[in-house]
């Protein structure tokens, strides 16, 4: 254990922890763009600079491990001036189009610019312009908004194990590239989208459906495989506009292509909207009362004439525990047979 002092607060933390983690542990906030709690440190954005007593110049807190006796200052006029300059440099090469950006309101860079009140920019000048659009169906890659924090590169390698992207070129020409700069062709898990601190990576199907205003978030469970990832539906006007997952969930915020991008079936025009009764080989719309009365009459008749075992029910692993419990109880108690199963075997 290491005894350290952060902004005058004494604390004891585990050896090996970074200064940034130690500070966050006791509720001291240090701004950062490239650092992500679930990825290895990078030290690229230079926003998390702190002063440490005895060190000749400020250091990045995300890459500096604590050691016993450290005295750390996370904010001072010098530090704030440096952070401001770093932010100005980043913003000098960032389109100022928050008004139409998908991530407005959920953008770390935007928040920091707001916090530091950056309207004018001393470094305004040439900007990177990328006209090529990535043609993949899932992930919008707007490289002009990319601040080269490298989170996407790290998550793709460290968490997903895919390594679909990496840094390419040097200096002003630096950008995140795919192999041979082709269209992205990966697992489309969207982990990169979830960790991007700006609007550089977004879901293509999110576009123009709703950002923050009027969007309600509801936590639920993904309805695809049996992993049971916790997801958050973002809903506007009774329409799911986005699916995300929080970091403190069982699945650590990670999702797959189906969970993150496979939600449009919910609002498909093919959805059944009315009960249907077949007559002479054709379906016609019916009321719920008509349909349920018909079912009850037919089941009663078959039960009377052929016994309850002539009836069988098939339930679904799609449905909830409560629906499944009710279904088997219905078949057993109301119909009177144990002919009930579901698709576990298929």
């Amino acid at each position, binding site marked *: 254990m290491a005894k350290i002092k952060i902004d005058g607060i004494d604390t004891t933390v585990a050896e090996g922890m970074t200064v940034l983690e130690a500070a966050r542990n006791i509720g001291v906030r240090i701004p950062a763009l490239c650092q992500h709690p679930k990825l290895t440190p990078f030290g690229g954005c230079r926003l998390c600079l702190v002063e440490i007593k005895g060190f000749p110049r400020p250091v990045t807190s995300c890459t500096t491990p604590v050691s016993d006796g450290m005295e750390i200052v996370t904010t001072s006029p010098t530090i704030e001036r440096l952070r401001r300059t770093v932010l100005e440099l980043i913003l000098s090469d960032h389109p100022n189009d928050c008004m139409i950006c998908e991530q407005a309101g959920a953008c770390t860079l935007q928040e920091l610019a707001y916090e530091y009140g950056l309207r004018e920019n001393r470094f305004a000048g040439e900007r990177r312009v990328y006209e090529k659009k990535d043609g993949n169906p899932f992930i919008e890659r707007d490289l002009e908004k990319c601040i080269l924090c490298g989170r996407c590169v790290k998550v793709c390698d460290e968490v997903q194990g895919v390594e679909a992207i990496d840094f390419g070129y040097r200096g002003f020409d630096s950008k995140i590239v795919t192999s041979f700069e082709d269209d992205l062709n990966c697992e489309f898990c969207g982990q990169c989208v979830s960790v991007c601190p700006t609007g550089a990576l977004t879901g293509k199907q999110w576009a123009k459906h709703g950002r923050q205003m009027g969007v309600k978030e509801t936590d639920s469970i993904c*309805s695809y495989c049996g992993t049971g990832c916790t997801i958050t539906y973002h809903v506007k006007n009774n329409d799911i506009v986005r699916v995300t997952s929080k970091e403190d969930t069982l699945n650590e915020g990670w999702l797959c292509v189906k969970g993150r991008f496979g939600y449009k079936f919910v609002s498909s025009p093919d959805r059944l909207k009315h009960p249907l009764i077949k007559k002479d080989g054709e379906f016609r719309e019916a009321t719920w009362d008509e349909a349920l009365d018909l079912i009850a009459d037919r089941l009663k008749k078959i039960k009377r004439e052929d016994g309850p075992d002539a009836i069988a029910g098939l339930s679904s692993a799609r449905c909830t525990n*409560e629906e499944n419990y009710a279904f088997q109880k219905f078949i057993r108690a109301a119909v009177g047979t144990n002919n009930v199963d579901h698709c576990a075997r298929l």
Partner: protein
Amino acid sequence: MAGLAAIFGSGAMTNSIREIEGMEVIFIIGSNTKETHPVIANRMIKAYRKGAKIIVADPRKVPMTKFSELFLKMRPGSDVALLNGMARVIVKEGLENKEFISDKTEGYEEWKKAIEEYTPEYVSKLTGIPKDDMIAAARLYGKSRRAGIFYTMGITQHACGTDNVRAVANLATLTGNIGRESTGVNPLRGQNNVQGASDAACLPNVYPGYQRVDQDEVREKFEKAWGVSLSPQCGVTATEMMNAARAGSIKAMYIMGENPVFTDPHMHHTVEALEKLDFLVVQDIFMTETARLADVVLPASCAPEKDGTFSNTERRVQRVRKAVNPPGEARDDLSVIIDLSRRLGYDMGFTTPSEVLEEFGRVWPALSGIDYHRIAKYGLQWPCTSKDHPGTEYLYKDGFPKGKVPFVPVSFRPPVEIADAQYPFVLTTGRNLYQYHSGSMTRRVKQIESHAGDAYVEINPEDAARLKISDHGLVRVRSRRGSVDIKARITTRVSEGVVFIPMHYHEAAANVLTNDALDPVVKIPEFKACAVSVEAV
């Protein structure tokens, strides 16, 4: 699942997903984890980064092999041979867990004799896996005392599926790799709530909580709880229902959220069976292949449109919340069933989902500690027997419910249908990353369709060259039950003599070809191996 329950006491995953991180050895057999359970694969990769060694055994070079220490590319349906062979190596080299075997198991000596014939040479002949790789895998797993086995339908969807599961269990029992943190046997559930549907007893032989319908005292308990007299007779399984419908002994079916026409083997048989019924009700969100055959179709709601709980693969009961309203007059399944039951003269005794879960907990103590309030943020894993019980991360910490764990001798049986002159290929089926099951959900997502909307058959380059098949060229795949025309995808993922078709595509449905031969115990169909011919068209 029944196979695993008979041995350890429960059919569920013994560990939790979090524990994967702490595993020393991860043995994946018959699971394409990276594509079918991608986020569990993320945990495995996390474990790999911490130094875990991964063994993958599969007929296909699945993506997880990128992280494997050893990849055992086996012939479809040769799992028992491989597992027995590994067990024999472990015994011969003295790597078995002697203390665990003497304290916690029975039938060891007899079982040991039964695996004697599975010499590395013999196993290599049956499985196609090089002898040394099999031995290395046995040593890696056998030396570890913090190892987890993971499997899915690649183990179970065989006519010898129960034997496969027993062979898996034997290996874990032999090394004592069960019943501890980060150590166990883990069948990964393929669908969001298979665990819950099983727990809730949409099963013909048990009441909720796996309590047998053919035991008088159990039946009496449920008769009292539900205020009605119940049938003492076990019902029939889904696959048997289809046979009974065809034979005319089942006259009406009520199908809620299932598409058996598409997901059952031997599609023509299923259609014939459902057409023969006097009355068919289908409750679903789309007009599925099955719904088209119905007399009455009821519009249901999907997961984001209702409140309730799902139980995931690690037995965790988690809260599902309504985020949007269902379209038109569509209703949630629960209210429909309650309504219908009343019309049949039986009052269900509950109206809201939380009341249902409460009743579920009253009839099954393992759930009695779980309520909506407690799982508001994080789910709880059953058994959770009281309101202050923290839930159970891994099973069998305090021993096995049946006392001793039995070693069950199993011998290798080839798939019911093997390749021959007329049908020289073995077809295996499964899922891909993008599509899901019968595709009724994912195939309606434009982005997924544009990326993975074409059906395909994976075929080895050597076979393709011999048959003059070109990449993306059309081929005809034929079995004794039917034929499909489908695009070829030439890849070394599959070995020579093996082809793979994902199950999702109705226009080239794999289940037109698959064999409806059943495992004699759990009645699971043999989706993972049947004989086919392939020709360019």
